[in-house]
């Protein structure tokens, strides 16, 4: 069947299993001629957690660090938009053991934060993409939705984050198709952490917090209900921090990036479990605002996403310079008030 060829299922599961799970979902097999020519589902498939070996690098058609016009332009454009190119990673760029000159100097400036409270999970981030002193994009998106009930904040290299979020989204969707339920946030964090592990020690830099809501979904009828009922009993918010150096932490409050100390200062004094949604939104906004005020690599606008059992909702993007001018006005009024002796 087409999907089997696509995903090399014969390598992973026994024949009987694949036939059972897919005879229901795919009534007809479509002839996908392009599949055989693309090499993205060969032995470097991520499910095998391939560890790079030197021999592979010599044969790789795309050598890491070699600047081709196609590569550098796609790296730049991915900084200001979600990676939407149609080419999936045909061969993942494993770094060679010698250090290779990077096409441009990278710096990892951002402010992202996420916390859990009684109303769900709130994630906020600024929108500045910087590139060693230059604001490469003032309107980038640092919170990327992965599926209806999971978003991830990104910090580190924008291109790496965008790519790995898409890869994670693909793997989660495959899991959902195979197992009839969404993978929990904890499972998604573990999956991302294991996918990033082979790249430890390379220049890859991804520091993400996964914010999601688990459980509470109706069985789609394709699989036996008893197994899933017993297994997935946890339902509720989940917040995990995953870093490409291997850290994977569960928590209720995280802030990542160069502006995170400033954000922590606001969050540590304001965040409690009992916040209302409006209060939580204003604290998150304030934290990002203060961080953008002090940190050179954070700025421009703030994005806020709120995740509940119904999925994620996005607050419209707000330009923080308005807030800065409003605050300045307030201060001036207060000063004038004092000067003239008003109470």
């Amino acid at each position, binding site marked *: 069947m087409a999907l089997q060829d696509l995903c090399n299922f014969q390598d992973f599961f026994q024949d009987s299993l694949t036939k059972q799970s897919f005879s229901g979902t795919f009534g007809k097999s479509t002839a996908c001629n392009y599949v055989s020519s693309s090499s993205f589902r060969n032995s470097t498939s991520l499910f095998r957690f391939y560890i790079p070996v030197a021999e592979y690098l010599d044969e790789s058609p795309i050598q890491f660090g070699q600047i081709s016009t196609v590569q550098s332009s796609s790296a730049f454009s991915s900084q200001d938009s979600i990676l939407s190119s149609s080419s999936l990673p045909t061969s993942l760029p494993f770094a060679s053991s010698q250090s290779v000159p990077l096409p441009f100097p990278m710096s990892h400036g951002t402010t992202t934060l996420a916390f859990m409270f009684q109303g769900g999970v709130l994630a906020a981030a600024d929108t500045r993409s910087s590139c060693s002193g230059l604001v490469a994009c003032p309107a980038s998106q640092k919170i990327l939705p992965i599926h209806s009930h999971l978003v991830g904040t990104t910090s580190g290299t924008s291109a790496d984050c965008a790519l790995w979020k898409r890869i994670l989204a693909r793997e989660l969707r495959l899991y959902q198709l195979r197992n009839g339920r969404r993978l929990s946030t904890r499972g998604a964090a573990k999956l991302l952490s294991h996918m990033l592990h082979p790249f430890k020690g390379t220049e890859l830099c991804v520091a993400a917090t996964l914010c999601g809501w688990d459980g509470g979904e109706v069985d789609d009828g394709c699989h036996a209900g008893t197994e899933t009922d017993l297994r997935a009993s946890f339902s509720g918010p989940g917040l995990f921090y995953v870093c490409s150096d291997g*850290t994977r932490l569960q928590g209720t409050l995280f802030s990542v990036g160069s502006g995170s100390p400033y954000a922590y200062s606001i969050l540590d004094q304001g965040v409690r479990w009992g916040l209302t949604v409006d209060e939580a939104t204003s604290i998150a906004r304030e934290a990002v605002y203060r961080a953008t005020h002090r940190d050179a690599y954070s700025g421009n606008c703030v994005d806020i996403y709120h995740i509940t059992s119904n999925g994620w909702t996005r607050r419209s993007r707000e330009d923080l310079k308005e807030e800065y001018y409003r605050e300045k006005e307030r201060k001036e009024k207060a000063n004038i008030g004092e000067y003239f002796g008003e109470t």
Partner: protein
Amino acid sequence: MEYLIGLQGRDFVLVAADNVAASSIIQMKHDYDKMFKLSEKILLLCVGEAGDTVQFAEYIQKNVQLYKMRNGYELSPAAAANFTRKNLADYLRSRVSSLPVVFNSSPHVLLLVVADLTRDEAVDLLKKCIEELNKRFILNLHSFTVRLIDKEGIHDLEKITLGNK
């Protein structure tokens, strides 16, 4: 920087580890558990470089559990330690350029001669060690998970938390 300690008494072992999960200079978590339960009577305490600790410890953990599933009985602590050590040595020898896993030489432990400690004496000694740590160590390690292992298995003891310095 992190802290682990183990004390062996007459018929028990007392272990403690701090609870901080840090990322460079920021404490990301204050209640992080650094102990991995390998089996009913074996704990692995692991510190070192960020992702390597968890990956390595989980690998050892799953393998010990697999042994139990395959053979029907658990690995002894000595055997588990040998297995861990062999894996660590192989791992260290396989990568010459960088050492991914480091057994951290933590702040030095004042280990007195531990002859025959009773449980209470051991807990007191542990508290003294932690007080000394608090006095001399540059980092503020606020709370410690404490567990006791004896022939009945692994018991959680009360967390030791210190007031502000």
